[in-house]
């Protein structure tokens, strides 16, 4: 394929989109390909010859759909909340304001390549330990508008304040993964290999909040003489009690990763996998809140009592709306299952001996999250990457991605190698530092790996 055409298609695909979530760490980095094995086990064993030890790998991200990086900086650093910041939300064309943050820490990642004629790419096994904390919320834009601008503009029409969604989840995964090559034939210069992979992890749930459902509506009568409120919500929480067992967590489950990779020679690789299939059941520190109700507010009630004018506030039904039924039944939370797929193409094979290393490497990836926790927008992201490797010592990558933000994401990666030590640092999203538009998201990642 014409290279220029390939590049064009890859980049166009990276921009087209509508969707979002963070993908595989260190995408497109030939030295740290195995970092993706925690999500796509078929990538285990890639990027090193015999063994790798990563201590640690850190990935953090966050974003929102409206406030720009500059606005967030004003609020967080300069203690300054401008009217325009609230108006940014209020005037947004999106139906909802969403925000999310996530933190992933791989304290230990051990990979081994067993067998294979080149000492690698045969059977690969790994041991992984990952900590994840995810939080996201969705607030109806008109709720912000209502609070900021008042209800007068909504008089005479029903205001639906959906969604009101909050999810928070922290968990630890400890387990093993592995992948094996299955030769499929192909030509001599382009042998085909199928590489199924699987990972099985014990999950320790550390905390969880899940808004199962929440609907709120408000109707202000045109003359203002009554305001009708209706709400229906159900929220499950599991918060560890003080002094609880932090290591074992307050719930548990099993997570399974499954993937399939296809190699068409050394230079062309494709993969697809599903990360975190499964759920956890919270059994300790559980409180489930639910309430359904309707309330019509006609003002604070005044009554005549014993010939004196007395005021009483009769808000019983409103209190009932906010006074939920509470149960302590164990509840389950689906893991943030993701579909991850992609492919890489390398050109200009170097003389590096540990594994096939290409001077130029192109990648195209898609990540789709089925259960949106920690994302702040629609759950799919498409990314395209290019990585240049110089002198078999360092790689520099650039990445473009889109998830429906108004501006595409721009990411940069740098990995340097000295002997068995590999140090990777970068971001899949530096856009807010470069563009002061509306909507802001950022991501950062770091990995220290020893490989032999």
């Amino acid at each position, binding site marked *: 394929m014409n290279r220029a055409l390939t590049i064009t298609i890859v980049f166009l695909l990276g921009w087209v989109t509508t969707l979002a979530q963070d993908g595989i760490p260190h995408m497109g980095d030939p030295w740290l390909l195995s970092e993706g094995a925690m999500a796509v086990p078929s990538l285990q064993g890639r990027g090193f010859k015999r063994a790798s030890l990563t201590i640690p790998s850190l990935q953090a991200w966050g974003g929102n759909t409206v406030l720009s990086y500059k606005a967030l900086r004003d609020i967080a650093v300069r203690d300054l909340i401008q*009217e325009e910041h609230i108006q940014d939300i209020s005037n947004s064309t999106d139906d909802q304001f969403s925000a999310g943050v996530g933190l992933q*820490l791989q304290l230990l990642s051990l990979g081994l390549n067993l067998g294979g004629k080149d000492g690698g790419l045969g059977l690969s096994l790994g041991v992984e330990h990952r*900590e994840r904390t995810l939080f996201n919320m969705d607030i109806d834009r008109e709720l912000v508008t209502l609070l900021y601008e008042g209800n007068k503009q909504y008089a005479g029409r029903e205001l639906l304040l959906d969604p009101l969604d909050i999810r928070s989840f922290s968990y630890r995964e400890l387990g093993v993964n592995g992948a094996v090559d299955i030769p499929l034939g192909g030509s001599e210069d382009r042998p085909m290999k199928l590489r199924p992979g699987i990972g099985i992890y014990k999950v320790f749930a550390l905390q969880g909040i899940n808004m199962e459902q929440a609907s709120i509506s408000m109707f202000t009568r045109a003359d*203002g003489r009554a*305001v009708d409120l209706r709400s229906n919500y159900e929220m499950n929480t599991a918060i560890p009690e003080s002094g609880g067992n932090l290591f074992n967590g307050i719930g548990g489950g099993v997570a399974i990763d499954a993937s399939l990779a296809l190699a068409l020679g050394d230079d062309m690789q494709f993969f697809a996998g599903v990360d975190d299939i499964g759920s956890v059941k919270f059994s300790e520190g559980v409180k489930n809140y639910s309430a359904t109700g309707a309330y019509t507010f006609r003002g604070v009630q005044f009554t005549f009592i014993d*010939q004196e004018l007395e005021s009483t506030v009769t808000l019983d039904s409103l209190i009932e709306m906010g006074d939920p039924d509470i149960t302590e039944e164990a509840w389950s939370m689906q893991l943030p299952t993701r579909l991850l797929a992609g492919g890489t193409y390398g050109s200009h094979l170097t003389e590096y001996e540990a594994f096939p290393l290409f001077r130029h490497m192109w990648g195209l990836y898609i990540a789709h999250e089925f259960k949106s926790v920690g994302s702040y927008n629609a759950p799919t992201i498409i990314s395209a990457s290019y990585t240049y490797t110089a002198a078999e010592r360092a790689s520099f990558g650039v990445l473009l991605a889109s998830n429906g933000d108004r501006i595409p994401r721009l990411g940069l990666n740098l990995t340097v190698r000295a002997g068995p030590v590999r140090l990777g640092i970068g971001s899949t999203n530096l856009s807010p530092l470069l563009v002061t538009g509306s909507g802001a998201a950022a991501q950062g990642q770091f990995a220290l790996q020893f490989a032999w």
Partner: protein
Amino acid sequence: MLGSILLLGSLSGCRRGDDLLADLPPYHGEWLLPLVQGDASLIQLSQLRSLPLSATVNSAEFGLPSGTYPFVPPIDLPFVGPFPIAIAEYLVVMEVNTTDVTVRLNNPFPIPIGEGTRVVLRNTPVPGVPGNVVLDVPIAPQLEANSTFEYVGAATNIEITDTLYLFLEQFNSPGGTNVTFEPTSSSIDIVLSRIEVARMEISTGRSFEREDSLSLSIEQDLQDETDIASGSIVFYADNGLPIEAIFQGYMYDAAGTLLDSLFDSPFVVQAGVTDPTGATTQITTSSDTIPIDPATLDGFLRSSKVVLRYGVSTMDQPGTSVSANSTAALRLQLVGDIRLNVDYDDLR
């Protein structure tokens, strides 16, 4: 878990609440909301919620004027009275489902009041007939000289008219020897409370007014905030009572100087319509608007007392009387159509 710790760590660096408040931008929300509402029935407006009744009886009423008597023979009279008690001249009849009753009668006389004597309240001055009895309380045991009888109970399905008549019926006493009757009178106090009214019928061509005052204490810091809000407050009155009502409020400063009035002219609430059973057949809605502007707010913020004056009238009602039952009411409601202008920095 490390992630949780990091998140908590970042939260611990949050600023204090008052600093955050000061950093908020000025607030200019426009709100259309009901503020307060109240229902008033006819009994509430007519001050008959709790009804104290009292009468006095001196010894001459049972044939023993003050003085010393060597011998008083036993007394047995069919009744002593009537002692009229005025309730309200506008009242035709008040039909009461239930009411709590307290009766207290002291005996300052030198002879006992015998067991079987009855304290009877009637709505006509005719004793001994069953159809006009409001309350009938027998005295037991015998009420000795210089002691007090007290009864606490309830009455059901009674009718109270503009005037009630108290009797001591089947009045008896064993008499006595060498006794002296002072001019002191016996007092009979009856209190009807927690009156549950079924229907009330009042005369037309009547009116009365009442006043209530509220003390205000508005912080000095707020007294200059005359631009904190603008817009209006709308008074609504949904009147299901067959009476016209009128409302006004006056704001005074600490020196008693009139600063402003609530309405430019008193708020007149047109009468509703009821049928003879007292049920509302037509609710009449009236409204008036109070503008919220710096001058009005200045008057309110500097006032230390608000006098609320209200009156009810049946002057314009046809016929001789109108009725209202327990479901008929006058509903008052205040609705704010207000734009808030809050600068948090000024409020610190």
